[in-house]
């Protein structure tokens, strides 16, 4: 029987929330490339700048192999260049990780390159902090302002002089990206102990949960899994990732059964075989109940457990004696006991080709770390670790390291954290029990605001990072930035954070620079590189060159300050002379070589790799022999018998080589040594309020892609999802303006009444509603979730728990 479906453009227009049309008209190329962006960040008026989209030519062009930076995935792309202009980004089929795909954002990368709002030249602040008034300066003037300050702000010299060479008085923070490594070298060479990155507002708890339990944050072999529990992971929408695309070709009776578990009905739910609505933050109860069924019905892989488990009996005893039954879990999670029994049995029946997808998202609930531990243990109980169709560790190709510079300054204080002493009344680092490399962003920020630092932190370097948009409680972040004496931002766009800068250094986009070569582990390991496609536009530079210029300016003068205060340096000078001593503190050292030279060195262990990477963007041994085109869409990267499905015979990567069910040392820190349910984890919303959910979207990454003209065309603003029946009760119709308020603030955006969300929850997509007037498309284009998400700290790693906020809604 042939099925008939109605597919109409009008239907599309009615059915989507992307209804409004961006009033974009043609902008000439000369205007786009000109420098008349005004002398400050506020010169761009909405509507004055618009956007031009040309078709690709029929004639000559050449392709440059690069890696996308529109999100974190680094898919391989081929940039088509015609007469020096990038006219199209296509998928590079050579890369096993991204397998010949480029999503909407990847395609729209051209608009990041040719965004008329881009930062074009260095600027220094001339207005009030946060006002966004800057003047254009030369690179040397910008570097000089960082060193010596202006009448508006102090420079590094003054700060370090006053803080007696405490290098930790400067904070360094960076967003995720291939060049984060380069910026981190600057932080290490500078000698500060204060480093913050995206980890604590991203996947810190999931990576750590799997890390301490299995010794690794594994990948999922969704190419071969037969049963997939996709819980709290919206893989069809949230940052469309190459590693999960395969699964969507196999659902709906085509080889893999996928159960989607999510409080919202998402595109992933639509593509799954079954969708189970769960109450937010209760996944741990579900996993414990699945574990209970597995144990009581003896569905586990006893051989694997015998060989590779530590603390199994203790955990087993806990789950059974606590009676984590499906009947117990039903009222907590909202998922029926029958469905839980079925899932546990199906999972076991398909094991080891079963995957409880680990997830790649931010921390939503305070129990997230324990949830991830429970998931890892549940997966491992079925022996579905390091094997085809299960979770895999994969292979990895080694790169040669290069030398960095990490001098110790005597006067540099430790990280601005007072160590927890567990003494009553003592001011300790009680944001979280474990302090890891990334630190806790909101914990750090809040202590800074509350003057609980052990010493003064007076300024910050911020690279490709937008704290104003990226972490809960925007108002507090603004206060932090205002309180900093010196804020230096390195970015491509005039973001909300850049508006608070004292010195703005314009980086070029990813299509204008070569980044550190990277190795990608997995079933089909490879090395890939981001090659520069075109020369940097305007006066922008790669961060490598920016840091080379900056360190050349500041290295010697700052050393002079160290000489005053650092007795060890004084002694060294006495012993070895000044020149030899300075060589160990010379900030310019990490930036002496070009990125191309460093990459060449990194892959010098593989014959022909550098040339291959330059030409194809991708390298792995025997690539020429293995790589084959199978069809227009499909390629072979490795023959089946050469794939790294199993690299350790199932053995976990933990120091003990075992799955760690019980981690006794946690108990001393007040953390449950094994996953347990606590009553306070139960989902509840006060009468008349709604739990605020946030999330990501297939056409936007975070605030970083918010000003992309092409992506805005697909979705010009975010809408707040409100249950249809609730909306009807409140007289709320589609596109009515709604004020969403929490205890810390409010934001306004339009309503999307839908049955895809529960009556006691509301949802909207993260990354919208920026306040920077220099962003033509992103300026106030909807609501900013972080203006209302309360700064709830997850207790183990200090991650921001983003689904713990109750809000009220009002039609305005």
């Amino acid at each position, binding site marked *: 029987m*042939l*099925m*008939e*479906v109605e*597919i*109409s*453009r009008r239907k599309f227009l009615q*059915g*989507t929330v*992307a*209804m409004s*049309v*961006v009033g*974009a008209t043609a902008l000439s190329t000369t205007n786009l490339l000109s420098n008349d962006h005004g002398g400050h960040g506020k010169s761009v008026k909405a509507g004055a700048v618009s*956007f031009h*989209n*040309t*078709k690709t*030519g*029929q004639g000559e*062009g050449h392709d440059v192999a690069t890696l996308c930076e529109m999100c974190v995935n680094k898919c391989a792309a081929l940039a088509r260049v015609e007469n020096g202009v990038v006219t199209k*980004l*296509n*998928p590079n089929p050579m890369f096993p990780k991204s397998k010949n*795909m*480029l*999503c*909407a*954002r990847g*395609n729209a990368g051209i608009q990041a390159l040719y965004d008329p709002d881009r930062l074009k030249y260095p600027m220094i602040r001339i207005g009030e902090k946060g006002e966004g008034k800057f003047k254009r300066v030369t690179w040397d003037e910008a570097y000089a302002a960082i060193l010596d300050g202006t009448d508006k702000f102090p420079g590094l010299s003054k700060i370090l002089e006053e803080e007696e060479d405490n290098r930790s008085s400067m904070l360094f923070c960076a967003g995720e990206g291939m060049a984060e490594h380069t910026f981190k070298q600057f932080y290490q060479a500078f000698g500060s102990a204060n480093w913050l990155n995206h980890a604590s507002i991203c996947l810190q708890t999931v990576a750590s949960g799997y890390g301490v339990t299995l010794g690794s944050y594994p990948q999922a072999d969704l190419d071969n899994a037969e049963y997939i529990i996709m819980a709290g992971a919206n893989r*069809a*929408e949230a940052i*469309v990732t190459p590693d999960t*695309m395969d699964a*969507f*070709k196999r659902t*709906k009776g085509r080889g893999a059964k996928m159960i989607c578990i999510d409080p919202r009905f998402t*595109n992933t*739910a*639509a*593509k*799954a075989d*079954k*969708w189970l609505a769960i109450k937010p933050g209760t996944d741990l109860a579900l996993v414990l109940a699945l574990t209970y069924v597995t144990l009581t019905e003896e569905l586990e892989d006893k051989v694997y457990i015998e060989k590779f488990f530590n603390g199994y009996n203790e955990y087993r005893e806990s789950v059974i004696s606590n009676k984590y039954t499906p009947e117990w879990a039903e009222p907590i999670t*909202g998922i029926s006991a029958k469905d839980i029994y079925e899932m546990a049995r199906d999972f076991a029946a398909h094991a080891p080709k079963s995957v409880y997808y680990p997830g790649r998202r931010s921390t939503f609930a305070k129990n997230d770390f324990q949830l991830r531990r429970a998931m890892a243990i549940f997966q491992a109980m079925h022996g579905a670790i390091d094997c085809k169709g299960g979770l895999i560790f994969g292979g990895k190709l080694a790169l040669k390291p290069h030398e960095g510079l990490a001098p110790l300054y005597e006067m540099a204080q430790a990280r601005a954290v007072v160590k927890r002493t567990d003494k009553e009344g003592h001011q300790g680092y009680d944001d979280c029990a474990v302090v890891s490399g990334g630190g806790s962003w909101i914990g750090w920020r809040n202590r800074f605001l509350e003057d609980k630092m052990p010493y003064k932190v007076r300024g910050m370097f911020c690279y490709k990072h937008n704290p104003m948009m990226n972490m809960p409680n925007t108002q507090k972040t603004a206060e932090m930035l205002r309180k900093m004496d010196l804020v230096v931002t390195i970015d491509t766009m005039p973001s909300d954070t850049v508006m608070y800068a004292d010195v703005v250094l314009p980086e070029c986009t990813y299509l204008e620079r070569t980044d550190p070569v990277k190795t990608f582990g997995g079933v089909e390991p490879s090395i890939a590189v981001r090659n520069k496609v075109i020369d940097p536009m305007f006066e922008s530079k790669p961060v490598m060159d920016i840091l080379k210029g900056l360190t050349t300016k500041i290295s010697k003068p700052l050393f002079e300050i160290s000489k005053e205060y650092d007795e060890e340096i004084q002694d060294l000078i006495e012993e070895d002379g000044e020149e030899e001593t300075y060589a160990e503190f010379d900030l310019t050292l990490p930036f002496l070589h070009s990125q191309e030279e460093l990459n060449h060195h990194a892959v010098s262990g593989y014959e022909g790799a550098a040339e291959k990477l330059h030409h194809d963007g991708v390298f792995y041994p025997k690539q020429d022999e293995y790589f084959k085109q199978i*069809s*227009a*869409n*499909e390629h072979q990267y490795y023959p089946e018998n050469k794939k790294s499905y199993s690299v350790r015979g199932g053995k976990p990567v933990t120091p003990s080589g075992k799955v760690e069910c019980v981690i006794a040392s946690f108990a001393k820190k007040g953390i449950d040594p094994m996953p347990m349910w606590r009553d306070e984890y139960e989902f509840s919303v006060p009468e008349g309020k709604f739990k605020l959910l946030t999330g990501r979207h*297939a056409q936007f990454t975070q605030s970083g892609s918010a000003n992309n*003209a*092409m*992506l805005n*065309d*697909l979705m010009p603003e975010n809408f707040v999802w409100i249950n249809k*029946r609730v909306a009807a009760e409140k007289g709320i119709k589609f596109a009515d303006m709604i004020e969403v308020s929490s205890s810390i603030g409010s934001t306004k955006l339009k309503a999307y009444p839908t*049955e*895809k*969300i*529960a009556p006691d929850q509301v949802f909207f997509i993260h990354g919208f509603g920026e306040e920077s007037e220099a962003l033509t498309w992103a300026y106030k284009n909807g609501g900013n979730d972080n203006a209302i998400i309360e700064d709830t700290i997850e207790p183990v790693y200090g991650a921001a728990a983003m689904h713990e906020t109750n809000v009220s809604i009002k039609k305005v």
Partner: protein
Amino acid sequence: MARYGMALDYKNCINCKACETACKEENGILMGADKHRIWVGTGEIEGQYPLLDISSNAFYPSQCQQCDEAPCEAVCPTQATYYDENGVVRVNPDQCILCSYCMNACPYDARYVEERGMTIDKCNFCSDTRLARGETTTACQNTCPTKVRIFGDLDDPNSEISEVLRTREHYSLKAHLGTKPKLFYLT
């Protein structure tokens, strides 16, 4: 000379809009939600939370059906809409007078007003961009994360699309209208 067609493994579609974006970038399509050569149709979800009907929210990637008996070509008073040598329904902007007969005639709602070129535009299988350069895929096929589309020559028995249409069940949209689309939805 070829007879180009496209098979759509539409169950793979996750409505990520990579195809729409690739099409816009490749073919220089104007901004605006009503200016798409290709789009993904979605059904409004049926049921009440949490009892929702998964199948009601399926995604249908769509574009010009490249009919062998194209109503838009038949009604065009100026022959602006024509078949090229590869059987692709094309539009000559110089001859288009924006009478919009084609828009009304098309049962698939595939045509829209292109204000920059002042023409009633539609998908042309990237004929004047990628195919003109000798490439063998359309922008939408090439970029698709879940590989929904297979494009090729229906007259070549050895082409991938011919092979797929021989071996897999498929249907055409509104087949009863006799438009003979060259887009095939794989079941």
